[in-house]
């Protein structure tokens, strides 16, 4: 592991269950809060007539502090020992789900925060289902505010049993369920003396157990969606990022959707001409022939690639208007963009056909493209399986292709 490897963790859950407070406390207990930032938070807490408000570390908007809620997602970096973490705070209000998903799509690990006084609430379940949809690798549940239940083992055990069952129902392999008091710091960075009955990992232990960004498996076929066709000193260059696979000089590639075969004459990175480039690299290609290229076409080394006829999508919808059967939406998949028709909507659990997917809901959607698009099924964690929906000029939702016909 190199020094700057980063472990990303999103904290989700219902409003006021203590997500922001936890982050502030964690920063404080791990010496990640600079004295001038702590002084600012102390001062602001006093001005609001409160005891030290750890949530103010991430709740920086005046509106957030006045109303005591998180409006928008925040990313905070912290260093513990030699490891670097990116902690993403996600708002728990229903009306800020779009901000929650903006944060959650940037994480590889998750924490569901649960207030022991309130138990599982609407957004707890919604957020859990979203984490599942996004393919978050590892999820823990923190049972927060244990101090308000006298650090009771019986209360904790009751929740632990219930949650194990729910996590299974939501399709999330259960990892850890940890009793904490974010405000008092119990089982946050250090083991709580108030809960001697609990011998499992602390919150910090969980963080340390979280993996780094997944090393993507080597995938067989090249996917190079064209981003920009750019003329440089009279030369036509095809710019983009290798989403999967590799490209090398002399290789013959197929241009999707035209099916034309082209040869790579040069692979360019800044002033360098390189022999080959791999996954994740933003490069420029010089190809045999200069005409007939445009953004949204995909270069591949796979033979017989066909445009999707139908795509089954595990989808999340966030637009204020519901997603209805028969609707036309714009679907983006990396640099590809095309209108799609919604053929069928079904609920997530029993797969019954329903007429619409409401705001903030997760479900299964069958989409039929009106123009050629290359979509890969999710199975191999393929880059071209992630779809983003646009409606009325707004980003309206997202989904993962589970099946492509």
């Amino acid at each position, binding site marked *: 592991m190199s020094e700057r490897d980063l472990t990303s963790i999103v904290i989700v859950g219902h409003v006021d269950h203590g997500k922001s407070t936890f982050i502030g406390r964690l920063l404080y207990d791990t010496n990640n809060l*600079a004295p001038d*930032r702590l002084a600012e938070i102390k001062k602001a807490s006093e001005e609001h007539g409160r005891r030290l408000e750890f949530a103010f570390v991430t709740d920086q908007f*005046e509106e957030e502090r006045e109303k005591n809620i998180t409006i928008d997602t925040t990313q905070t970096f912290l260093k513990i020992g030699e490891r670097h973490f990116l902690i993403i705070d996600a708002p728990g209000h229903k009306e800020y789900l779009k*901000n929650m998903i903006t944060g959650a799509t940037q994480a590889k690990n998750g924490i569901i925060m649960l207030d022991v006084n309130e138990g599982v609430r609407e957004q707890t379940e919604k957020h859990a289902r979203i984490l599942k949809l996004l393919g978050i690798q590892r999820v823990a549940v923190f049972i927060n505010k244990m101090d308000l239940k006298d650090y009771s083992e019986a209360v904790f055990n009751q929740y632990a049993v219930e949650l194990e069952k729910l996590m299974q129902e939501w399709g999330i392999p259960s990892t850890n369920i940890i009793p904490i008091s974010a405000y008092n710091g119990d089982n946050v960075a250090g083991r709580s003396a108030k809960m001697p009955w609990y011998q499992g990992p602390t919150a910090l232990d969980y963080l340390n157990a979280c993996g780094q960004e997944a090393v993507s498996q080597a995938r067989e076929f090249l996917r190079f969606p064209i981003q920009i066709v750019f003329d440089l000193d009279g030369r036509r260059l095809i710019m983009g*990022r290798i989403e999967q696979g590799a490209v090398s000089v002399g290789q013959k590639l197929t241009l999707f959707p035209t099916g034309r075969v082209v040869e790579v004459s040069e692979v360019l990175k800044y002033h360098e001409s390189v022999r080959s480039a791999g996954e*994740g690299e933003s490069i420029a290609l010089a190809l045999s022939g200069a005409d007939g290229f445009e953004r949204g076409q995909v270069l591949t080394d796979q033979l017989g690639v066909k445009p999707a006829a139908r795509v089954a999508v595990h989808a999340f919808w966030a637009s204020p208007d519901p997603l209805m059967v028969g609707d036309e939406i714009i679907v983006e998949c990396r640099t590809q963009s095309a209108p799609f028709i919604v053929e069928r909507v079904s609920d997530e659990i029993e797969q019954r056909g329903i007429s619409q997917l409401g705001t903030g809901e997760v479900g299964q959607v069958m989409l039929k493209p009106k123009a050629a698009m290359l979509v890969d099924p999710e199975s191999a964690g393929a880059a071209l399986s992630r779809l983003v929906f*646009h409606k009325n*000029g707004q*980003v309206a939702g997202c989904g993962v292709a589970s099946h492509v016909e």
Partner: protein
Amino acid sequence: MDHLSELENRSIYTIREAFHQYPKMGLLWSIGKDSTVLLHLCMKAFLGKLPFPVLHIDTSYKFKQMYEQREALAKEWGFKVIVAKNQQALDDGMSPEKAGRLACCTALKTNALQNAIQENGFQAILLGIRRDEHGIRAKERVFSPRNFNFQWDYTNQPMEIWEQYKKMGEADHHYRVHPILSWTEMDIWQYTQREKLPVVDLYFAKEGRRFRSIGCERCCQPVESTATTLPEVLEELRTTTTSERAGRAQDKESAYMMQKLRSLGYM
């Protein structure tokens, strides 16, 4: 792929996305360490030939070394700089001492930027702000719309999922695009070292003090430091307990100063 290469490749992707969406675009360069990294990334993205201009918002109160660097680098790397000033405000004697920092920053930076966007017809501006610099910047989007009053509607920001961004809408005047939003101060310095990028010598200690963040001379305070070289700066960052913008007065003059500044269109 190592961490810095991953950041670099992702930022280049963002820069190219911005250029595709908004061909009439400008790059805001303050001559500080962050926007110099961004400038270098733009050069890389377009193989050494920028298809858009570089914009410098000149308050006339910048350090002498910054002006020298501006001329030297533009010549060496071969790009054009548009220098934008709020001359009217300067003629009227605008200064932080006279009008206060909020008014001064707004007049000489925000308003100068707005005039430049208007005059050049920019649909988007690339900026080198980072989430770990300030709690308000931590809330930013990569593609951040500004309305016709140049305001940032921070309580109603668009969704950003898997590097797909909201497109220009009827209520949007221009976009602020932030390609290095997820870089940290440490990333910037490590990348500066790896790519051998030039930096203004104000960042290195003289007589026990150095600047960690630079802007206008009168509103920047140096921090105590013995770091006289780039490796020493990296070493200092591993152990320091002060925050990066501790020496930047305009962030702290009053509560929510940064929020007020930014909601009006500040960087």
